[in-house]
């Protein structure tokens, strides 16, 4: 099956590590994809706050582009790795299906600029593709460096599983845990899987956002996790890059590696760290390397 890959703005900048690691993993697994040509921003949470119809047109343009660029395929499967893009595309599709009047307006506007929107594209998250299309059994076959002895806390965040996504449970999702287990890691059972990290509030109202990120990191630490696995560029950014701020605000001394699930999976698949964007993290995950070598943890 062929997929069309919709990166979104974050995966080209702060979430570049996510793109690098996801594409490396898909290459190793021989998953066939091409990037959506001339894609535009999905609108994220901001567009909906200013003008909803513009927000729907913006997202629908990407869906229409995908339909056009995949017109020779039996199915249009879009991989949207960013949680916000994934949710917005799904939301747009659902909304337009339920509101024919709005759909007519959006379809007409797109037609003006030469695009056809039918709504036949399927919006897929990489977790969904890897677990449900590719399958854990196939992945296990290709694992060359199992993550033996590494305790991973799978953190899904909010918009990957809520509210329109159907590939996993909304309260206790498990796809990422299953992938981490397939990669040979030990998964941590915890209650923070879908708790909000603070999202864009870290940039706007930091006093409110820092505690939100802190409780997640703190809980992962308390459950003796060696790494937090994320599936969203904003979650990864908040949990990794604000650790110093959290520590100074809460007078703590927390240090934990926050990686994309694709990076962890990539290590297990034997992909070299540079191709997984490890060099772009604030600190390279020394603990993981040490444990894999059979040594002791550098920081606890």
């Amino acid at each position, binding site marked *: 099956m062929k997929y069309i890959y919709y990166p979104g*703005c974050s995966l080209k900048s702060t979430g570049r590590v996510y793109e690098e690691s996801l594409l490396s993993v898909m290459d190793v697994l021989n998953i066939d994809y091409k990037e959506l040509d001339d894609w535009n921003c999905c609108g994220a949470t901001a567009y909906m706050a200013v003008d909803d119809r513009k927000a729907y047109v913006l997202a629908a343009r990407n869906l229409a582009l995908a339909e056009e660029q995949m017109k020779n395929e039996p199915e249009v499967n879009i991989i949207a790795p960013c949680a916000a893009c994934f949710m917005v595309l799904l939301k747009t599709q659902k909304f337009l299906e339920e509101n024919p009047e709005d759909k007519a307006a959006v379809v007409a*506007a797109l037609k003006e600029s030469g695009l056809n929107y039918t709504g036949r594209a399927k919006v897929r998250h990489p977790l969904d593709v890897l677990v449900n299309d590719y399958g854990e059994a196939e992945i296990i076959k290709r694992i060359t460096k199992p993550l033996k002895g590494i305790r991973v806390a799978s953190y899904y965040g909010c918009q990957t599983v809520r509210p329109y996504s159907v590939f996993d449970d909304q309260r206790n999702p498990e796809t990422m845990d299953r992938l981490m287990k397939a990669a040979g890691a030990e998964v941590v059972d915890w209650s923070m899987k879908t708790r909000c990290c603070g999202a864009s509030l870290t940039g706007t109202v930091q006093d409110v956002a820092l505690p939100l990120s802190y409780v997640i990191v703190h809980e992962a630490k308390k459950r003796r996790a060696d790494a937090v696995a994320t599936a969203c560029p904003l979650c990864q950014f908040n949990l990794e890059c604000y650790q110093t701020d959290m520590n100074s605000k809460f007078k703590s001394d927390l240090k934990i590696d926050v990686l994309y699930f694709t990076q962890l999976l990539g290590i297990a698949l034997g992909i070299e760290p540079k191709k997984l964007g490890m060099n772009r*993290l604030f600190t390279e995950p020394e603990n993981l390397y040490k444990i894999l070598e059979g040594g002791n943890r550098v920081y606890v």
Partner: protein
Amino acid sequence: MERSIYAESFALDVTAKDRLDTRRKIKYESELDKTFSNRIAESAHGEQLFGCIQCGTCSAACPVSHYMDYTPRKIIQMVREGFKEEVLKSSTVWLCASCYACTVECPKGIKITDVMYALKREAISGNYYPKNAPASILANNFFKQVLNNGRNSEGPLLMKMYLKTNPFMLLKNMMLGIKLFTRGRISMKTEKIRDKKALKKLLNSVESKKKILSAGKPADVKEAAV
């Protein structure tokens, strides 16, 4: 002799303000905007709003409700009653991070996050928010940037937001910016799509169904905008 804690706090109150606060604490029904709830329900595509049983599940599920001046449960009730100004000036609207926990948990199927979006739209179009509130500035700048270029450039976007709201934050986040920059995770380049003009035309060809507050702005909008 022991004085009751209430008596003491009352006395302190009086001396601190030097007078009793005699302003009216409740709103008369005639001052409420009776059409507000209908407009919000329509804008949010959520008539379920009227079925709210005030159970408070949304406030319990919300990770930021304890920072809000009105919790989501209160906001829903205030919308239904027509407390337009209180709702639109509240911090609640701008603290909602769109995590959808309330929407998923609501036993009556109210799309609370979408109600919050409808309130954000009303607050922006009616100028009901503090001019230097970062969340609304971010939304507005993001909106313009994508309208003009088709893509969002995180570097320039954040820079602009901090300059407009709190340049001190820019200094505070300088180290973070440098760290990201040296790792190739942020740039000051503006990202764009190929045909920017066509996209702008496309976006301008549609508009929210209702420009709700454009007519009949309340008299104290200026006060809210300080």
